[in-house]
């Protein structure tokens, strides 16, 4: 049973309107560029997107927002996007803002088969509204539920044909967590290598978590904030 898909169109072909998607990346770093392009092309709509950020106007998830494909964003930070703001203010787009660590840990919980986790983030704030607060050892925690996503779409640096993944630098971010959390996980990689080429001690995401893999092409890897030393 091969996990290898020819390209992004192929890998996402069964994603339907209304699907719940996780999309890896932090800012524009480590985002699944090829799959986003394919989702725009497929024009699938009413999506719920779990992603730390929402891209910029003309890149990343911003491209899907421009085509009005997103019904709801679940994110920790959504600046840098005028179209996003317009849709939010007009009521076209629903947004759920959650703390970044809570977002990460709710992904991990799903991947680890834990139905919920306790975190102190948001205690006493509007994030806590409607949530169980529980005291352990004198400190309050919120009960936060594991995510339940139909598809996780992640980007890795290298992957092998069994779905083992290795991420590079801070492009790792949410990618391995989401890879563990999807019912179906689609990984696009910069380099698809033969099985046996990756050192088993260096693998970040074991292949058991990855159902589909393909080598992406034409990576732009846009830099959002170029900052240089003199």
């Amino acid at each position: 049973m091969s996990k290898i898909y020819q390209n992004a169109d192929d890998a996402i072909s069964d994603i339907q309107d209304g699907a719940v998607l996780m999309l890896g990346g932090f800012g524009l770093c480590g985002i699944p560029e090829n799959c986003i392009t394919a989702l725009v092309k497929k024009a699938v709509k009413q999506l719920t997107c779990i992603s730390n950020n929402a891209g910029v106007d003309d890149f990343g998830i911003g491209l899907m927002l421009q085509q009005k494909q997103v019904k709801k964003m679940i994110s920790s930070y959504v600046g840098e996007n005028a179209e996003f703001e317009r849709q939010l203010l007009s009521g076209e787009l629903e947004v759920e803002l959650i703390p970044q660590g809570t977002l990460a840990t709710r992904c991990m919980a799903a991947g680890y088969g834990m139905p919920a986790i306790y975190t102190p983030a948001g205690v006493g704030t509007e994030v806590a509204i409607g949530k169980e607060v529980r005291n352990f050892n004198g400190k309050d925690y919120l009960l936060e539920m594991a995510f339940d996503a139909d598809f996780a779409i992640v980007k890795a640096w290298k992957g092998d044909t069994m779905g083992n993944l290795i991420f590079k630098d801070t492009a790792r971010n949410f990618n391995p967590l989401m890879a563990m959390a999807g019912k179906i996980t689609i990984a696009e990689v910069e380099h698809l290598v033969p099985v046996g080429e990756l050192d088993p001690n260096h693998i970040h995401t074991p292949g058991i978590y990855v159902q589909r893999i393909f080598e992406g092409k034409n990576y732009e890897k846009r830099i959002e904030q170029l900052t240089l030393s003199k």
Partner: protein
Amino acid sequence: MALDKFQIAQRIAKELKDGFYVNLGIGIPTLVANYVPEGINVTLQSENGLLGMGPFPKEGKQDADLINAGKQTITTIPGSSFFDSAMSFGMIRSGKVDLTVLGAMEVSENGDIANWKIPGKMVKGMGGAMDLVASAKNIVVAMMHTNPKGESKLLKECQLPITGIRCVKKIVTELAVLEIDKTGFKLLERAPGVTVEEIVSKTAGNLIVEGEVPEMVF
């Protein structure tokens, strides 16, 4: 003379101790990295998944895969390590980060902090701020003593939606260093030439002044 933002950063840098792991927020906190005292070693954590953050890269050396939590291109240093965002917030929650420096819009006299949302304005999100303030064992706030309208940002209670409760330990403004005490803002130091009276007049929450308040030493 009130401090400028570089002096605020410089004063905060005096809170650093050898071997500290430190998380610096965006804005003035980022500047703290430039004033690490001689002879001590600190390791900077970036909550997107890096320990051991180095300086910005030289032109041509930038790498889209290597950014900090402010999405700026950065570099690594010898001893850096990468990890996923769950481990990153794991080390924050478990108290392994020794010091967190954050900006704020308001701080209350019991240590509540508001720094993520202004009602009526576009809300961008809390990012990692709520995790950091709920978990860090030592939080120093870097901010101006008053807002652009001249209103105090050190309040009895926060007016803006809060980011976390009873978490701030210390505040460094252009006028003063203050500590959150059981009953309010305890004045520890004045900026050089700034009077206690000026600090009193610009602090809306309960200000505790005990004995002679020394000037900051740089």
